[in-house]
């Protein structure tokens, strides 16, 4: 089964350079070989079916409306041992704490700008810096309640943070449902290996949300843009698991700066909102006035302290890809520590020397728009043709602030079931972090896998799949 398995040039998480399984993967490898190709294929087939019948589907943007797809779940799990996990956990806790301090500072004294650690025009030119949030004190001074940083491994297997998703990232429902499915497929492996459970995520999320309110039994609502949003399944899933109401903007209304849901028995008050809509759609009176998704008056009620919102409005400023380059300096500034997990080296096109370097090395670099998500608006230099290189040269020159570049990463690989055989496919890692009375990293993650041979794009909207991620005790 692994005779023809190729690992050259990348860090493969299962098979080391000498062609043998790393310790924490040995049991899984034996198990796969004993199961045999055909059995694995059957299991994979029934997994696809199970996902469809469970309705674990998402809608694809830029695709015709109403098309529902499943996020392909490859049944071979990705395993992280205790040491690897400790490194990730510590690194993320540090990072999120620093970013939270950073956001708070930006909306208050802006010390970091005054001390010239970050150029202030970088913040001033950021579309995600919200003037309305200046001087705002969110409950318990927490801004980033829920986040999910994307982590990759370089050629030596070293972990690096690729981006920080501080605007209520999606995917956690897949982490949870994937685990349920895979437990059914490899029950004996779970027993033998000792895998840390993730199932209490919704309970932890609810605790964290309720922690934000001073009421004894706060009422929590999940605010969704609605059924056509690509992550609707997740919104509904989390609301169900938490016993919270799933609401759309039209279900809510604000009276006397208090937020209410419209129910069959009249108005019911809402104390905490886990919102899955963008900052700018939240309240048409303050932000995008054309937004039909939001709730007029919500922001004012929030400012008055009558409702808690997670994540706080305005966090987007810190996951701007241009700000990303400064995060090591941000950690140093607020915490006087070196980053426990590094950034991927990043060139800011707004800086003169970097811009020159980027324009000279376009075919080798990955160029990204600073505020696009989902793998859109990016160019992978080595994979793009010269016409695309020129297109991006134009775009960058027109608006340098809007672009960053990074060296092409050699993402690590994990064995994956393909049409032909089991082969190495590139993966990233998205762990989920909750910030309430402490910063908790859930011991598990959504591993996204690029299903196309050689591809480095793991986004679900562009042909990526997922894997269950096992963190060992």
């Amino acid at each position: 089964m692994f005779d023809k398995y190729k690992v050259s040039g990348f860090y493969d998480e299962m098979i080391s350079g000498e062609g043998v399984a790393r310790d924490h993967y040995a049991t899984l490898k034996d198990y796969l070989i004993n199961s045999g190709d055909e059995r694995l294929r059957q299991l994979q087939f029934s997994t696809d079916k199970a996902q469809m019948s469970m309705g674990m589907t998402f809608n694809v943007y830029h695709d015709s409306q109403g098309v529902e797809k499943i996020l392909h779940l490859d049944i071979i799990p990705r395993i992280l041992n205790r040491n690897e996990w400790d490194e990730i956990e510590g690194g993320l806790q540090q990072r999120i704490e620093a970013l939270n301090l950073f956001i708070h500072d930006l909306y208050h004294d802006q010390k970091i700008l005054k001390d010239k650690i970050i150029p202030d025009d970088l913040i001033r030119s950021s579309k995600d810096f919200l003037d309305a949030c200046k001087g705002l004190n969110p409950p318990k001074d927490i801004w980033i309640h829920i986040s999910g940083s994307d982590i990759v491994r370089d050629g030596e297997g070293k972990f690096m943070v690729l981006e920080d998703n501080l605007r209520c990232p999606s995917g956690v429902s897949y982490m949870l449902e994937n685990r349920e499915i895979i437990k059914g497929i490899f029950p004996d492996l779970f027993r033998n290996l000792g895998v840390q459970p993730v199932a209490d995520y919704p309970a932890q999320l609810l605790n964290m949300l309720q922690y934000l309110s001073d009421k004894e039994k706060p009422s929590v609502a999940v605010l969704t843009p609605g059924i056509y949003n690509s992550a609707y399944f997740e919104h509904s899933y989390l609301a169900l698991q938490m016993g919270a109401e799933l609401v759309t903007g039209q279900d809510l209304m604000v009276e006397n700066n208090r937020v209410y849901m419209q129910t069959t028995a009249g108005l019911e008050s809402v104390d905490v909102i886990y919102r899955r809509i963008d900052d700018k759609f939240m309240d048409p009176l303050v932000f995008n006035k054309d937004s039909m998704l939001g709730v007029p008056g919500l922001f004012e009620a929030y400012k008055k302290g009558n409702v808690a919102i997670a994540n706080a409005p305005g966090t987007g400023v810190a996951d701007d890809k241009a700000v990303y380059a400064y995060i090591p300096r941000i950690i140093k500034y607020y915490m006087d520590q070196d980053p426990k997990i590094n950034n991927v080296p990043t060139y800011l096109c707004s800086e003169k020397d970097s811009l020159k370097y980027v324009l000279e090395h376009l075919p080798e670099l990955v160029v990204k728009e600073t505020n696009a998500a989902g793998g859109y608006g990016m160019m992978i230099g080595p994979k793009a043709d010269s016409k695309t290189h020129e297109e991006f040269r134009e775009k960058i020159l027109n608006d340098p602030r809007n672009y960053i570049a990074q060296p092409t990463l050699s993402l690590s690989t994990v064995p994956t079931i393909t049409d032909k055989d089991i082969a190495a496919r590139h993966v990233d890692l998205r762990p989920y972090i909750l910030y309430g009375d402490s910063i908790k990293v859930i011991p598990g993650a959504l591993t996204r896998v690029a299903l196309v041979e050689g591809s480095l794009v793991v986004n679900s909207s562009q042909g990526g799949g997922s894997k269950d991620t096992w963190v060992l005790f």
Partner: protein
Amino acid sequence: MLSRVANSLFWSGRYLERAENYSRFMEVNFNLMLDLPPGVTELWQPLITATGDLELYKQKYDGYEKEDAIFFLAFDQDNPNSILNSVRRARENSRIVRENISKESWEAINGLYHFVNDAHGGKTWNSDKPQHFFSAVKQKVELIYGISFNTDIRGDGWNFNRIGQYLERADKTSRILDVKYHILLPSVSDVGSPLDALHWAALLKSVSGYNSYRRYYGKLNPVTAVEYLILASLFPRSIYFCLNHAENSLRQISGNSSGKHTPVEKTIGNLRADLEFADINDIFEFGLHEYLDKIQVQLNKVSEQVSEQYFQIRPNFTQQISNQ
């Protein structure tokens, strides 16, 4: 419960019941055709009339070929009430509120949706035995009801779902009775002929009431058959039964016991009481068609009042903007 959620549950109940009724009507019609002597024209037109979509049908098709009728009632995407569209809407409404129904119920509804979609993709109306499709849909809906009965909590959501289901069922029973009786009318004089008996049996089978009717009344008789479909207190598809149960659900939602009524409870209570004390001979004297018509008008009113009282959402958007 959120008004929007209540609305979705009500409509998912209605659409699911509609899909089930259509499937049974079709299945019965197939069986009936097998029993008819050669030369008797097929009976698709009354069925289409009963669904209330005859005008739309006429715009699209000439004549009443079996294939056209099947396609129109089951798979036509232009027909808002086709089985395909009803199932899609039932599923869409369930998907919107799936955190409010059991996982098992959701998966069963989702399964039905995929089954009907696949049948549509596979052009089932061209197959040599399309009736298998209809019995499968019927069974799958019954399965959903069974699963829901054993897994869903009996909260307001359950009751809104039931109200949708029972109002729809009462409407369909009254319509099929109205249309079929109209056709059978000329033959009332020679009641007892084999052909006549077939038709009456088919009507009762259309509402899954043939066996229980026989057990209750023995011989087929138009008067008692009509009585059974309108007034029977124990038969779950009679109009009276449906009203009684919808009313119970409404009262469970409002918490009103007798003596206190919301407007919709008043309307449905009046109608239910009317049926409760009605005599079948009086109904025939009044005119069956007129009587059924009156019921349908009241059913529509109930539906509107449910919506007015429970589903209306104040438009926070425009209202607040203009306040500023």
